[in-house]
């Protein structure tokens, strides 16, 4: 049966997913720095002054009140750890880590507490929580506000990691993450917020752990993550003009990873290009390349190509940052190298 859809921005889609899930389950609470904003400021008792630094959570406090949309101090360990404690005692918190680059001040509560609690307790507890966080370069936000680093969380047992690339996926995957009984890191690329697309109305869930073919083809498999998906599609257009029909695969969930989808596509195309905006070492790019090399070796007709950011922090100057971010052109070259 056809679902009604309409065009929303990525930002609106995330906001809608939060609203729908909070409507659906009173145990879902939001917390983070200025997720409402203006707490205790006269005139903002039940209104938001900010709705998040980039306005993603705007309007939610009006609908759900300050008991469920909690402004926090700049104490990421404190409130993200509180989310872990709340999740293990009956709530479903959605905590916002404003920029993923801030994980260094609260990683213990994420990977040692939230992620391991269930295992260390012998499966006798669960931690149903989501950490929403912004990733990505291109905002001229420099070295401490522009990283990706989802590889670090994907490395950690006990965590699930999700990186949507379209508004519809953002809504459906965030809903799935909130309903999931394990801790989920949900990565939102700040340069995708203003992109738009068709998004189903009402409750909409996209199962975790399922990749999505964003473009079919048999010339080569391009596995792209987050903002690299639109870049890969752009590259694919150019290559199509040259007669090469590449398949663009979006894993959407990095942990669990849809290995079958990746291996299946490569068995068909016999070529792999991985596009990852993260730094190259011990990255998703190496993770996927190693998966394919070790499990589909005989189906590869060319060496896997890795298109990633360089092994450097993110520079400020636009000329430098634009050089840092993988470009559609680099993807085209990489695909050509496999043909």
């Amino acid at each position, binding site marked *: 049966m056809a679902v009604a859809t309409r065009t929303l921005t990525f930002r609106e889609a995330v906001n809608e997913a939060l609203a729908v899930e909070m409507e659906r389950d009173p145990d879902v609470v939001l917390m983070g720095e200025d997720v409402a904003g203006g707490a205790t400021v006269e005139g903002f008792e039940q209104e938001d002054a900010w709705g998040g630094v980039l306005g993603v959570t705007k309007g939610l406090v009006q609908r759900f009140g300050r008991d469920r949309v909690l402004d926090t101090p700049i104490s990421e360990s404190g409130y993200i750890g509180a989310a872990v404690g709340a999740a293990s*005692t009956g709530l479903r918190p959605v905590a916002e880590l404003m920029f993923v680059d801030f994980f260094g001040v609260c990683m213990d509560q994420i990977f040692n507490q939230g992620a391991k609690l269930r295992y260390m307790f012998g499966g*006798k507890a669960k931690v149903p929580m989501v950490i929403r966080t912004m990733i990505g370069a291109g905002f001229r936000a420099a070295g401490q506000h522009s990283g990706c680093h989802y590889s670090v969380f994907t490395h950690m047992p006990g965590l699930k990691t999700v990186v949507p690339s379209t508004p519809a996926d953002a809504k459906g995957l965030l809903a799935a993450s909130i309903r999931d009984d394990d801790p989920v890191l949900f990565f939102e690329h700040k340069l995708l917020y203003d992109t738009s697309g068709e998004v189903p109305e009402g409750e909409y869930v996209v199962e975790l752990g399922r990749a999505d073919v964003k473009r079919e083809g048999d010339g080569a498999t391009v596995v792209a993550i987050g903002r690299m998906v639109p870049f890969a599609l752009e590259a694919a257009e150019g290559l199509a003009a040259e007669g090469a029909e590449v398949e663009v695969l979006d894993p959407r969930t990095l942990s669990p990873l849809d290995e079958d989808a990746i291996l299946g596509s490569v068995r068909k195309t016999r070529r792999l290009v991985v596009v990852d905006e993260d730094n190259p070492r011990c990255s998703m790019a190496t993770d996927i390349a190693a998966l394919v090399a070790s499990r589909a070796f005989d189906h590869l007709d060319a060496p896997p190509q890795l298109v990633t950011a360089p092994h450097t922090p993110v520079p400020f100057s636009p000329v430098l940052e634009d050089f840092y971010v993988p470009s559609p052109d680099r993807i085209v070259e990489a695909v050509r190298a496999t043909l």
Partner: protein
Amino acid sequence: MDLTKDNAVWIYDRMVTIRAFEERVAKLFADGRIPGFVHLYAGEEAVAVGVCAHLGDRDYITSTHRGHGHCIAKGVPLGEMMAELFGKVGGSCKGKGGSMHIADVSRGMLGANGIVGGGPPLACGAGLTIKRKGTGGVVVCFFGDGAAEQGTTHEGMNLAAIWKLPVVFVAENNQFAESTPVGYHCAASSIADRAAAYNMPGVLVDGYDVVAVHEAAAEAVERARRGDGPSLIEAKTWRYFGHFEGDQVTYRTAEQSAAYREHDPLTWFARQAVDRGLLTAEEVEQRDRAAEAAVDEAIEFADRSPLPAPEEALTDVYVSYR
């Protein structure tokens, strides 16, 4: 002391049970029957027991690497605890956690913690659940003097204060963080003084006097249940064993420990209780014997419990994964 007989019996029973458990664990460790890092609570019984005497099923505690005493005071079964230390299937965590991660969420025990300062944020979260669901419960956050220097402790206390969470922070000041004395690692004259930094009541009590601890905790727990927010209790205490089993304890003198043993919290409380007619000498002896028997039983249970199958290492990571 304004304790009922039931209070007194419960308090003595729990304290002596912790003591018996820890002394036996020390032996079992020495005999090589318990692997890994084991931090014993003996000497500090009055703190966990005096505080937990006010807690019930709807209440939670967060603990530390030195968690056996907290577990016993909150009602975690001894057999499951011992089986956990043995790495057996019957353990509180099916043998996956060990001493530093003993937990029993079903009994409000949110886990020992291998990370110093790991507890305060978690305690705030349990407090948030209580507040949101209006259960009337409270959360007690136990942490050591060394943990007072961890940023998470600062963040947790500030968060609990501004959100008026029903959390009681209990600093177990046994005067050392491993081999480092509190006077060196802590710039404050007293950890309790730091309560002022969060506008919460702060009180320093003699952690060897279970009655004093019990009284201070009564007020803090009441305040939390009333919805008036968190408090900080610093209990000055002393551990009888080393930081962990195997520690040669070169940084303290035998005299110091002897002095504390002279005011042992168990014998002190027993004497007081008997003097005040809350307990009879017979009841005390009976409790002593009962505690030993309970630990014997726990060891038998742990011995009988099977070792996990190796492949069990792969389970319980997620509720579901694909």
